């Protein structure tokens, strides 16, 4: 049994976000899982994955001054992003991106070789 049976990858091969959607009540969430819908409890094959563009509006962001772990070196910025379709999630953003601006995410390699999606401002 493979863990991806319960927890699908975050992205598809095209770099789109894989958003989970409950086929019973339409509830959507990200990051995706098939453990069960938080609204109605449906699970497994009743949860489908919808490729969704990694773009939306930056709600807020802050600079993390202290961090010791894999990935980016501090300081770096993280933000809340409202995806097109109203779902909200958090990710790395380019520092200084104004709240309310349109952003899209791109996979970016960090100094330690790990790859993270970083959101930056795009022209409307």
């Amino acid at each position, binding site marked *: 049994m493979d863990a991806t049976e319960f927890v699908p990858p975050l992205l598809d091969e095209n770099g789109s976000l894989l958003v989970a959607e409950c086929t019973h009540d339409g509830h959507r969430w990200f990051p995706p899982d098939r453990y069960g819908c938080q609204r109605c409890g449906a699970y497994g094959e009743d949860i489908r994955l919808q490729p969704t563009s990694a773009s939306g509006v930056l709600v807020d962001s802050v600079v993390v001054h202290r*961090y010791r772990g894999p990935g980016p070196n501090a300081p770096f910025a993280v933000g809340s992003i409202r995806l097109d379709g109203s779902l909200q999630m*958090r990710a790395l953003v380019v520092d200084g991106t104004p709240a309310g601006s349109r952003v899209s995410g791109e996979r970016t390699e960090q100094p330690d070789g790990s790859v993270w999606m970083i959101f930056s401002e795009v022209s409307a």
Partner: protein
Amino acid sequence: MTAAATMPRAAYVIGVGLHPYQAPSQIPYTHLGLTAVRAALADADITWPAVESAFVGTALVGAAAGRPMLRHLGASGLSVTQVENASASGSSAVRQAWLEVASGAADVAIAVGVDKPAMRSDGYRESGIVDLADGLIAPPTHFALLLEQYGRRYGVSAEQIAHVAVKNHRNGAANPNAARRQLLSTEEVLAATPIAGALTKYQCCPVTEGSAAVIIASDEAIARLGVNRSRSVRIAASTQRSEELYDADLFPDAELTRATTAQALAEAGITFRDLDVVEVHDAFAIEELVYIEAIGLSEPGRAAVDVAAGEFDIGGRCAVSASGGLLSMGHPVGPTGVGQIAEITAQLRGEAGTRQQPGARIGLAHMLGIGTVCIEHVLVKD
């Protein structure tokens, strides 16, 4: 729902004790916990064999922390249960002890919170679910994002939010059990080491170790053991809920607090206006503001102004975090929720010394545990 009013009998806090919260040391958890338990026994003026059941709240020590510690009080054969509920572990221990006494299962039960910091995992990290910022958003960052959202929505500045840390450190400076006893100005709070967003070191609770213990007893036990009834404090509500689904622009911890508070106040038969002292989960300064509002003590967006105006100072209309709160007293995790009950008990007895809220008769303790769960207790001095 297990409402206090529907339980067979009332239950009372009869003894409280603490080992001061402090920077991590080489002292084993056993000594920390035994110090608090012995202080609570002395405070209640009872002996260990009278305690029938123990709940040990700990999140970081590891499995089976209870009996290896408690046996040193005398291997009495009492019931021992370890309780883990993240930051609310101690609050859960208090609730379990209350349930045993109020239900009639035991006459005397003790809740002991004890912890030493350690880097361990949690259910979220082990769930198999990762996200785009996996591991990058530690609690200070989570709450720094909330601060941004709150400040923007209500036009509240970082300077105004810093008043929470000033107030709580002033309270904690007068608390011998507090880890960070330091008077701070607004300028000092704002100029301190930045952690995440606008949150500086003094707006984030310190990592600490320590212990707290609370003994809960029935009327019958109070009479049988000759406990001083005038120092006992009734637990009027013990309420626990967990997070539901909320709209994306709402802050889940605030909504959970709102629902839990409504239930706790209804169980106790009071309103928020009756509260004289409140201890909240102020792990980060912004949290105190949103919980003050969720409890109902301030209108939405007004808590920072009310804090700055002294309304939640000791001597104000309701003393919030009179102990110093998590920001100054510290957040050793397992002990924190038990320590809140100890503080409110001292306040309602009129034994809080220079931290005493004048005329305090009703208090509320509020803790959250990641997951998220919320536990509240209402204490009343009849």
